[in-house]
């Protein structure tokens, strides 16, 4: 009898419980994600000032044309692609190397694994702050590096060294994250494969080339595509070094797609221009996300 009573209760139907449980998420999502998304798209076709939102006028694709005509945007685009082209391969290789080193059952490896993972959980602003102090002219590190042929300058304030500085900070902070993903991948490779290869007389390099690399193909694919998508979204590190100047200082040499839209949309209050820039940014990311989507298991 008791069971019968529960069967009639609304809380025992899938549809009522389902929508009830989804409602907080859906309400927040519609109001704070979906509507803003539509507004972003809409405003990218308008001329609109942040302080006079109500006086927006439709101006077609003018914003998009202006964005592409702006040399500052082209520089930001170039910087973003440079960061992706350099940071992603470097962090991927270092992540794989550290994952392989930590994966060998040796005493102390847990300590190293922990140490390698910590940078990623710390704040980019805090990390950049430490690196700014370390790479300041007069610091021991800069003096040492100048002996190796690097200029004896404050890295983040120099137009040639600022972007490499950003990449350095970014790579340093991200290796641990990708290492953990690689580590999970390495642990999925059956031990028998290596044992069989040893029996066949394969050396370490052959095992790496013919077992590790092919078995990690999917993981590497994921690490690279996620790495690309994340590297495009870099912001905090750049914001941290822009002390007195505009975002992307010195002289725009560290501006990225994200700092560009932020500079125009929020700082210069040109919402239309900023929105167009962020939509362009979105489509660049989307191209890479579309590739990644293939391996993230769909719901």
């Amino acid at each position, binding site marked *: 009898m008791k069971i019968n009573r529960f069967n009639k209760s609304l809380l025992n139907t899938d549809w009522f419980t389902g929508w009830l449980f*989804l409602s907080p998420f859906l309400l*927040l999502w519609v109001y704070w994600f979906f509507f803003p*998304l539509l507004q972003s798209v809409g405003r990218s076709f308008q001329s609109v000032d942040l302080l006079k939102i109500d006086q927006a006028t439709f101006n077609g694709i003018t914003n998009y044309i202006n964005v592409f005509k702006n040399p500052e945007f082209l520089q930001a685009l170039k910087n973003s692609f440079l960061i992706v082209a350099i940071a992603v391969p470097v962090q991927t290789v270092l992540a794989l190397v550290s994952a392989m080193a930590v994966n*060998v059952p040796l005493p102390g490896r847990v300590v190293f694994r922990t140490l390698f993972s910590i940078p990623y959980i710390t704040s980019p602003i805090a990390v950049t702050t430490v690196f700014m102090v370390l790479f300041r002219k007069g610091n021991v590190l800069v003096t040492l590096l100048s002996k190796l042929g690097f200029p004896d300058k404050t890295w983040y304030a120099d137009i040639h060294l600022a972007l490499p500085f950003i990449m350095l900070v970014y790579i340093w902070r991200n290796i641990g994250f990708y290492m953990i993903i690689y580590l999970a991948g390495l642990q999925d490779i059956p031990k028998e494969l290596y044992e069989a290869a040893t029996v066949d007389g394969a050396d*370490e390099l052959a095992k790496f080339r013919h077992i590790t690399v092919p078995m990690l193909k999917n993981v590497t694919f994921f690490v690279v595509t996620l790495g690309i998508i994340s590297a495009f979204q870099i912001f905090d590190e750049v914001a941290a070094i822009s002390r007195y100047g505009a975002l992307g200082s010195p002289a725009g040499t560290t501006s990225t797609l994200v700092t560009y839209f932020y500079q125009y949309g929020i700082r210069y209050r040109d919402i239309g221009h900023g929105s167009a820039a962020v939509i362009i940014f979105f489509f660049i990311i989307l191209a890479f996300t579309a590739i990644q989507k293939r391996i993230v298991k769909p719901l």
Partner: protein
Amino acid sequence: MKPLKIIRIYLVLFVLGLLFALPFCYAIYTSLLQMKDVDKIVKLSQLTLENYIHLFSSKEYALRRWYTNSIIMTAIIVTGNVVINSMAAFALAKLKFKGQKVVSFIVVATLMIPYYIILMPVYIKMAQLGWLNTFRALTVPYLTQCIYIFLLRQFFVTIPEELLDASRIDGLSKAGSFFYIIVPLSKPAFISMIILNFTGTWNSYIIPSTMTSKQDMYVLVVGLNSLKDQFFERTNIVMTGVVITTISVVILFLFLQKYYVQGLSQSGIKG
């Protein structure tokens, strides 16, 4: 294993370890120095906690306020995410109803959209509502995040249906089976989610710095950035700020790293 190989591996570990540890050691060491000793090697007896005391007690910095703000913001967001995401994930993982597929699609599609794209409209909305410089602007839109719905859902689907069927025979409603069966069984997934959500929120910069302009409403990371801009030459003070900002997450991580690793590898990303 050949001794040569072991030496090679340790060499790699130590070199990388040094690169990772150095900036942290530098920050901690400098935070214990007086200004005149910065970038010098000093005796152990000359190390001092003065900077910490100074930062926390001096009226010159609003550090205590920033710390409290970070704790409040993080607590609200993590609580919201635990409750709202787990309910949504349960509905998507363990129930069957019309429209479910659409919501699943929404969750995945949202994952693909970088948050920056809606930053300006959200900022404008906050200004219109008069919410800028309040905790509402820092927390309300982020009370639920699709990545964690996805993560929890991945875990919930692995819980056997038989357990839920059995609970229903014992008289639990569908909603009841969520609270009495799913939640207690999903502790590891919840801990993974909490640690990822906690670190993400604690370290976030672009949103809090956009939504707050009053010093009193800064969170720790935004405060640290302004501290750095203002007092960059006082390296020991700035490094103390760095240590204070990072230490909380690092301690949390050290205790819960097992779950952190699980969380990353469980989110459906393994090959």
